[in-house]
């Protein structure tokens, strides 16, 4: 259900009925002392009803800001949203809605789960009261009924003895429990879309497994659509159908999870996947992406990945790449997909396959690339 930029509906008109969220040319800037940070710079994607979408990228690539912009949770200023940006949800453009409508949508139709649940839970109320309040507000039920429903929610997310837990305060719960409470709260109003921003990053592996299983089970049951934001490609592989890869505020590759993880077509994605340590790479070096993410104030003028790209050539320094069709419905922001670069593309893909097979063997001189 992920569409490429080439087949988009006209600006200003709602998308097809089966599209739940359609984000068009989303731009979010932050005006700070040192200048302007283009945190999100022209992001397009759409998400079908009941589908799952993963947004991956390194920290600072704009994943969270994308979600927060759609949820209208950013303070304006310092944030600034592009004039022609649109985010169509259920036939309405979220970015143009009055704040009162937006408040109703948040919690009723779209719910968000954050990485650190402790900061998003109120420390002075019991978790049961917090969920009940949410339910009361959005579902217009009586207080007693809301409380029952809160306990029910806690049971649903797999919290043992929910009656007792409902009377506890957030700090009395472990990280995994708090994340369950957050999920319970997010689901209490049966949203159509769940946005989870790094929901398991702060958790241990076994608890992460619990939360992911829970998210899957619940998503299957309620039929909610899911946007999963993470830097962990393993979590993405496990959870979603479609993937967007972000780099320096832009979408650089987009496709199904199999396409993006197994046959990446953009050098940054290739590098990310190659750098994951696996058993096959034991005894050798990991192939690392050299250098660091560019400062948002000094973005390379054309391809933003160019300074770190092992496959770059003259064109990359003179022409700005767009999202090109990279076959089978996927898109990649890379000149390798120009027709005249076929040979380079094939060489890059072959190199990627080789890197995946073995990692780079130790060679004589150590190459401590660092930041040079």
């Amino acid at each position, binding site marked *: 259900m992920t569409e490429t930029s080439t087949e988009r509906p006209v600006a200003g008109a709602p998308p097809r009925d089966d599209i739940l969220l359609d984000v068009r040319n989303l731009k979010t800037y932050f005006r700070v002392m040192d200048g302007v940070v283009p945190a999100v710079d022209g992001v397009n994607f759409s998400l079908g009803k009941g589908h799952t979408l993963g947004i991956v990228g390194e920290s600072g690539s704009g994943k969270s800001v994308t979600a927060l912009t759609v949820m209208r949770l950013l303070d304006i200023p310092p944030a600034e949203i592009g004039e022609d940006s649109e985010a169509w949800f259920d036939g309405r453009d979220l970015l143009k809605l009055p704040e009162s409508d937006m408040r109703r949508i948040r919690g009723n139709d779209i719910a968000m789960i954050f990485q650190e649940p402790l900061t998003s839970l109120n420390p002075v109320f019991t978790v049961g009261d917090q969920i009940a309040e949410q339910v009361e507000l959005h579902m217009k039920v009586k207080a007693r009924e809301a409380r029952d429903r809160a306990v029910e929610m806690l049971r649903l997310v797999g919290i043992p003895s929910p009656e007792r837990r409902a009377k506890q305060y957030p700090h009395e719960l472990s990280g995994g429990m708090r994340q369950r409470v957050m999920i319970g709260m997010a689901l209490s109003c049966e949203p159509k879309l769940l946005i989870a921003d790094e929901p398991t990053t702060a958790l241990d592996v076994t608890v992460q497994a619990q939360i992911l299983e829970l998210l899957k089970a619940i998503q299957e049951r309620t039929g909610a659509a899911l946007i999963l934001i993470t830097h962990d490609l393993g979590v993405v592989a496990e959870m979603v159908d479609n993937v967007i890869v972000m780099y320096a505020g832009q979408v650089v590759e987009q496709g199904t999870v*199999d396409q993006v993880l*197994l046959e990446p077509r953009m050098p940054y994605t290739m590098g990310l996947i190659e750098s994951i340590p696996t058993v096959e790479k034991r005894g050798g070096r990991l192939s690392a992406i050299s250098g660091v993410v560019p400062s948002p104030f000094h973005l390379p003028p054309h391809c933003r990945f160019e300074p770190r790209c092992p496959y770059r050539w003259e064109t990359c320094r003179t022409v700005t790449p767009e999202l090109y069709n990279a076959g089978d419905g996927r898109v990649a922001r890379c000149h390798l997909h120009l027709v005249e670069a076929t040979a380079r593309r094939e060489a890059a893909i072959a190199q990627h396959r080789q890197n995946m097979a073995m990692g780079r063997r130790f060679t004589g001189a150590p190459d*401590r690339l660092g930041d040079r």
Partner: protein
Amino acid sequence: MTAAATPSVAEPTVKRKLRRRPPAAIRNGRALMIAIAGYVAAGLFILLLGLVIGARGVSGIILPALAVVVPIVVLCILTVRLTRTRQVWALALVVGWAAVVAVAVGFLIATMASRQPDANATFFAQLLLTPPFFLAVASAWHFLRGARWFNGEWEHPLKADESGARPISAPLVVSAPPAPADSVPSAAHATAGTAPLAAAGAPAAPVAPGMDGHEPEIRPIVAPEVAAPASAEAGRPLVSVQGLKKHFPIYGGVLRRQIGTVYAVDGVDFDIMPGETFSLVGESGCGKTTLGRTVIQLTPSTDGRVVFDGYELADVDPEDMRPLRRRMQIIFQDPFGSLNPRMPISDIIGEGLLAQGLTDRQARDKRTEDALELVGLRREYTRRYPHEFSGGQRQRIGVARALALGPDFIVADEPVSALDVSIQSQVLNLLLDLKRDLKLTYLFISHNLSVVQYFSDRVAVMYLGKIAEIGTVDQLYADPRHPYTVALLSAIPEADPRRRRKRLVLKGDVPSPAAPPSGCRFHTRCWLRERLGNPERCTTEDPALRTFGEEGHRVACHFAEDISQTTVEQATAEAPAVVAAAVEGE
């Protein structure tokens, strides 16, 4: 940036030889002497204050007080210094001086009466002077009790039959001739009790003293010809941890009384061979970081022993830990919190060098720059401050700080956990390069099982302060034998959608280490126990770490034999049903 290109600095040598830490009796005696010195000095200070504000009668006693207090302080300091000299004449002097202090104080008490016409004031002055008198007597008594220390024949408190290893009775003083290796009865070790060493493939080498006559000195950071640690040739572990425990008291209530104990590390044994990468994995709160810090004695242990290159760390005189500290360094997890934001990089890295006695500013800066270059940063960065660097660069600075001291052994505590994938692989590569070039030995702490599998030679899985399973990477990942290891491996999310699979999901969270479950600590979450119909043994008997199958593969589970492909598959098929049931339950 090759190794040879880094020129060496004029190296300061640590002149003093390593000394053993004196026994408790001597330490108590010293503490008492220091207390006396502090007490009488404080008294003198108050008198002087009285003189300044012109209190009545003070001027009369100030001179005799000075005459007595100053020698007492000097004698106290001399006594403390002399306990370092392990000669019989020193004992005579120490006890003698303690006695002199007692007499001097007694004299002061006696003279009070004649000097002071005011009976009340005299009484109070005498009352104030009684504590140092008794302290001095007690101190002399403690020194006498520890008299054997001065004979140079203080035995290691752990006896051979208790610890399962040969006691390190040879003195830590370097001049002693090294014990011939073949004179060591290795049978004693093999037959010994409950905690045999966990050396994979290593002959159960007894921990012989590492005293081979060479003075410890700061070696250059990069010196390919550098002598490997003494343990390398002998084929014995560089680090040997036996029965190590670290408990933290919990204080609470109005009176701040101890209301409980956190059993952070609770009886851990393992060996790390020179040049090896040994990893600790486990969930947060299971004691990995505490164990790492205790191994290099950043936090003192509650019980058990750590032998580093032949030195029994708990026994080394704290002042003499310095040359050993240099050889054991740590890299911290948090690249943001672990560097002081107000210090330039030159000071952050130079701090440790200064502590090691490299006082020459220029030599220090030179070495700092060498270290930066070694980790792939520019030499000019010494003038900058931490906030000017990205996470990956800061982690490199953390590595440089450790390397500047030229260590043999590095505890890397989650060094890549806070970093993005692409930066993580850069830092892992760096650590691998450095290990190869500098012949380092790593204790690598991580909760990421993929990274551990890629990075290490041997792995120990920790759960609530104990080792659940230990073995080589191949043994552990191909044939996990502890239900916890099985669950951890099953929980790894793999970046390959083709390998999407059902997971074996554990119930609940790690219990609090302040109240570990009875018997097997894992029993509250154990899927195997559930499958076996909750055998009583799991809740009553703490499973010992026993060898399973191949040499070096050890597991702490009564029922490790019952783990098979089938049981795991059955458990996996059932586990998600728990979640599903909860969902259906609505």
